[in-house]
């Protein structure tokens, strides 16, 4: 299979995944809740009012018709009307995604270099106490839920030391520096979770590369330790890390729900959470579908990038 056919094949798979995902989201938001009008108006509302609302929302139409009008709207950028705000969903979702991207960007900018550094140092000092400390601390940081580490950091930095603000939302009209300052605290729990994963993968990749034949050859050729590590080991060691960073994107988005709720920050996670609480199904469906699309796209890019950078993988080989 040629390069372009392989890329095309992966694109098709990604589109199929997205279509299936849209069916899942549609089922979750339209079929599972049962009577949406009843859910919104409450158990004591008049049956005729419920019926009228259902008609107005268009949910008394056949499911296939509803799905088609929903998904074709989505593709054209029309995400429907919010039940709660009686306004189009799209601007809310776009605003929330941009906010979440700011938060995620800060977390990634902090964690990727530090995580890789931690992994590389651990690998170079494999089985020493430095290595064990990094591995155990990384593992512990990774498995503690965001709201738990978040609360401990709030106590230390906001309440006892008074050096970081309690919320993630900067005052209106704040400049970029102030915004970053407000986002530091919410990014710490995300940092904690990601650090362990990235460090672990970087360490494993590094150790594998250090024990490989090409490293042996490079050493025997008489290259200095510095040259061996930078020219031969690093490149191969960092490849798996790309995959981890991509798969952790999905994880990060899940974490955003908790972190944004904890720090009262208006991103896609808190948008989905408040839509779920208010049973605002169009908002919920749009938010979730956007998240799924981001995840599938990021993974597709990582997949292609990994293959492009890895000399040992030819496209479209056996699965």
């Amino acid at each position: 299979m040629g390069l372009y056919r392989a890329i095309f094949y992966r694109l098709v798979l990604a589109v199929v995944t997205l279509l299936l995902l849209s069916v899942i989201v549609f089922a979750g938001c339209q079929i599972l809740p049962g009577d949406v009008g009843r859910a919104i108006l409450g158990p004591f509302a008049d049956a005729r009012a419920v019926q009228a609302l259902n008609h107005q929302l268009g949910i008394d139409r056949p499911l296939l018709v509803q799905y088609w009008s929903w998904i074709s709207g989505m593709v054209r950028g029309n995400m429907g009307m919010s039940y709660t705000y009686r306004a189009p969903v799209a601007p809310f979702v776009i605003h929330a995604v941009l906010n979440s991207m700011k938060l995620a960007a800060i977390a990634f900018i902090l964690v990727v270099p530090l995580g890789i550094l931690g992994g590389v140092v651990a690998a170079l000092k494999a089985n020493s106490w430095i290595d064990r400390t990094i591995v155990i601390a990384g593992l512990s940081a990774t498995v503690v839920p965001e709201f738990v580490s978040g609360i401990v950091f709030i106590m230390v930095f906001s309440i006892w030391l008074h050096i970081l603000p309690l919320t993630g939302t900067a005052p209106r009209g704040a400049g970029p520096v102030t915004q970053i300052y407000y986002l530091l605290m919410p990014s710490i729990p995300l940092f904690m979770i990601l650090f362990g994963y990235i460090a672990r993968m970087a360490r494993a990749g590094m150790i594998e590369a250090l024990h490989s034949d090409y490293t042996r050859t490079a050493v025997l050729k008489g290259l200095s330790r510095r040259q061996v590590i930078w020219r031969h080991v690093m490149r191969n060691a960092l490849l798996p890390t790309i995959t981890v960073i991509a798969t952790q994107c999905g994880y990060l988005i899940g974490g955003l729900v908790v972190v944004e709720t904890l720090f009262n920050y208006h991103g896609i996670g808190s948008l989905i959470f408040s839509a779920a609480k208010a049973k605002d199904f169009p908002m919920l469906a749009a938010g979730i579908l956007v998240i799924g699309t981001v995840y599938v796209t990021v993974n597709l890019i990582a997949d292609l990038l990994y293959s492009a950078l890895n000399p040992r993988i030819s496209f479209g080989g056996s699965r």
Partner: protein
Amino acid sequence: MSAHAADSPAAPAPAMETPKRIWRERSAMLLRSAPFVVGMLILIFWVLMAIIGPWIVPYGADDTDLLNTLTPPAADHWFGTDQFGRDVFSRVIVGSRDILIVAPLATLLGTLVGTVLGLVTGYARGLTDDVVSRIVEAFLALPLLILAMLVITALGASNATVIIVIGLSFGLVVGRTVRAAVLGERDLDYVAAANLRGERPAYILFVEILPNILPPILVETTVRLGYAIFTVASLSFLGLGIQPPSPDWGLSISQNYGLIGGGFWWTVLFYALAIGSLVVGVNLTADGVQSVIDA
């Protein structure tokens, strides 16, 4: 991951290693690993507290004392009291119960569903495998927390819903691991021999293949238990998991965290430390099991 191949009959067995001996050696290795032992001790402590907690705590978890609300930690209330005058120490101890019922049951459900799913898709291959794999991919494009939130919002929050949602989602992940393991086994000679004897597929899957892929399933299960505790705690924090009046840790944090700005840190910190110790304990244990099986 390649390590379990050493157990399969096709690999040249190093000098008569009986399964029993392998397990004995592995247990000995586990007990020599400090992180595993520490993790196991933490885990045993919390399981013990979940069982006998209500009988050993100084106060009832729901006993209110409106004359002593929000008192800081002191001799009569080790971890202080909350805004209803309930003893935080007693609530932390008893609060281990729900999460230690819900998370393991969800993990168990996930392991069972995943094992069956992985055995069937790995063995069937072809169209069944392709279709199921696509659907699994689509579900896994959603973070577990979001998927759980979607279903729980639609169906209502209860311990049963949480167990089912987490269990089924884990089933998909475990299924992928088991499928990969089955793919490594299905072309080996012992499977071909069973086929020639005319054994039915169900027999081949569950009696012939399953025992050989138990190690990766065990690793996956212990790792999943950590994720289950993580997810149940997070859902409870969001109000979508374990419901009041349980003294559950995540739930208690969500009810009290508005108070920490006022300096009442003890109404939140001890629950947070409890969750932290439990997840770290479970994951140290899982890590130990994984490194011994992969060794």
